[in-house]
């Protein structure tokens, strides 16, 4: 008897260890998004297009789970004054809300680190990842990517920020010769800096907050950021300013994409339809997101914190 019990325990333990080898296929419950529900939810032209995607597969039936890394104002961030799902705000969250609504699904935001977002989609824990992803060749190979969406000037303008005390020193490619440029690992800014500032030294960091700290610390001369992020950084760090240098941004880089599980074409089509239908509202959403981000702390003329 004793032996049987311990045997069962042992098997359980083994099982919990071996799950790593288990299948990663998602629990593919199918939600038939009927024309009625979609038409009822989508109040605009989207309705017809969305209805065409008759079968939509989600991890949990009736729920659209979206992985996002809410530490990237104004694209997605957390409002500390709110609780639960309402905490998550920003452009991508508004977009996710719109998509869920137009598909007649309930939205569930799953917050996690940027790296984990991709894993969540890959492993089938979340239906999609909307976290300011740029399109890259590698991502397209492993995931279904949606059409591009644009978030105001966040991606259109890519700039360098530097310590305000540097003045115009780094305003031109000439002045940037030999300068240390920081960029987030695997980001659009990394490729831009590699292409357009070949004479500068490129140094990588893992997250923007750390990058800003390193800039203040003197590890870099400048860091390459999207305009929107740069504005949020400058709003809270008065010793930092734009350097005056702007990257030339190719059209293919200006958009973000949503990542979905490879092969889930039904949902991808539905998301694309929702993207196309919401085009006109992107600027409004972006400005709303920007208005609530990065302005919690303001400074007076002397650089002191103003209340």
């Amino acid at each position, binding site marked *: 008897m004793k032996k049987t019990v311990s045997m069962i325990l042992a098997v359980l*333990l083994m099982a919990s*260890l071996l799950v790593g080898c288990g299948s990663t296929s998602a*629990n593919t419950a199918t939600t038939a998004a009927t024309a009625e529900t979609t038409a009822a939810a989508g109040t605009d032209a989207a309705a017809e297009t969305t209805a065409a995607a008759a079968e939509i597969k989600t991890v949990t039936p009736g729920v659209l789970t979206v992985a996002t890394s*809410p530490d990237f*104002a104004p694209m997605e961030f957390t409002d500390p004054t709110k609780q639960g799902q309402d905490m998550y705000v920003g452009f991508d969250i508004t977009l996710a809300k719109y998509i869920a609504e137009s598909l007649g699904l309930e939205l569930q935001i799953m*917050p996690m680190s940027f790296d984990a977002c991709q894993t969540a989609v890959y492993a089938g*824990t979340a239906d999609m990842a909307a976290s300011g992803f740029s399109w890259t060749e590698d991502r397209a190979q492993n995931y279904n990517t949606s059409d591009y969406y644009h978030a105001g000037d966040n991606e259109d303008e890519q700039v360098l920020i530097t310590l305000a005390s540097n003045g115009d020193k780094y305003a031109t490619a000439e002045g940037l010769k030999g300068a240390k440029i920081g960029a987030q690992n695997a980001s659009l800014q990394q490729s831009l800096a590699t292409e357009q500032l070949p004479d500068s030294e490129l140094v990588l960091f893992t997250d923007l907050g750390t990058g800003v700290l390193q800039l*203040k610390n003197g590890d870099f001369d400048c860091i390459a950021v999207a305009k929107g992020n740069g504005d949020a950084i400058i709003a809270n760090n008065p010793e930092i300013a734009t350097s005056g240098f702007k990257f030339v941004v190719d059209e293919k880089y200006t958009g973000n994409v949503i990542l979905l599980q490879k092969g889930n074409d039904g949902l991808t089509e539905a998301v694309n339809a929702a993207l196309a239908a919401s085009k006109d509202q992107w600027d409004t959403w972006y400005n709303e997101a920007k208005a609530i981000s990065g302005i919690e*702390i303001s400074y007076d003329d002397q650089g002191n914190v103003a209340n």
Partner: protein
Amino acid sequence: MDFTLFLPNLAKIWSQYWKLFLFTGLKNTLILTFISVALGTVLGTLVAMLKMSKSRILRFIASVYVEVLRGTPILLQLYVFYFVLPNIFTFLKLSQFMWVSISLCINSSAYVSEVIRSGIQAVDKGQTEAARSLGLSEGQTMVKIILPQAVRNILPALGNEFIMMLKETSLASTFFLGDIMTSYLIVKGVSYLTLEPLTIVAIIYLCVTYPLSKIVDRFGKKMANPNSYRNRKVKAGGKN
């Protein structure tokens, strides 16, 4: 680096977000730690029993379990368990919070099992021999003679495990579970200030871990040898 703004920023962030740090962050960290150490102790006891069992197969299985969990980084385990377990146990509708707790608890169980095993095996062999020769059965020997003495070794070590876990739960911030490190990520996300919220987080952690480790220390010394000269003096109210 310019530090003139450090203190004003620190004050500003504290006055703005202290509720987030204490009520949400510290609370969730403590809950996570309690769950993972409590469940980890139960699971760890079972693993320790397996590891000391007579069957070679059971001992082998328990050894693999412990070695794999102790030999891989906890962050890696968190990723694997978090993404894979829900796909295996699809019938269990657990929240994100519970899945991460379970991952941490599985990790904790490996360490706890070693604490318990070494605690039991540290009891002098002569105790078993004496009990057995007095006619106590194997089970009686374990329950009446060995375990009460082993507890003296185990409890202080469990206290240390709790303190360890308290810090390890910071990894839960990978999934924004609302622990103290998540509070830091949230504040960093809206303010793009790094050092200031980190300083606050460090102070909160220290305020919890320092008193805890002092208590565990004292407790451990008392437990180590209840009949030592020093402890007898203390009990008798004498002065050293």
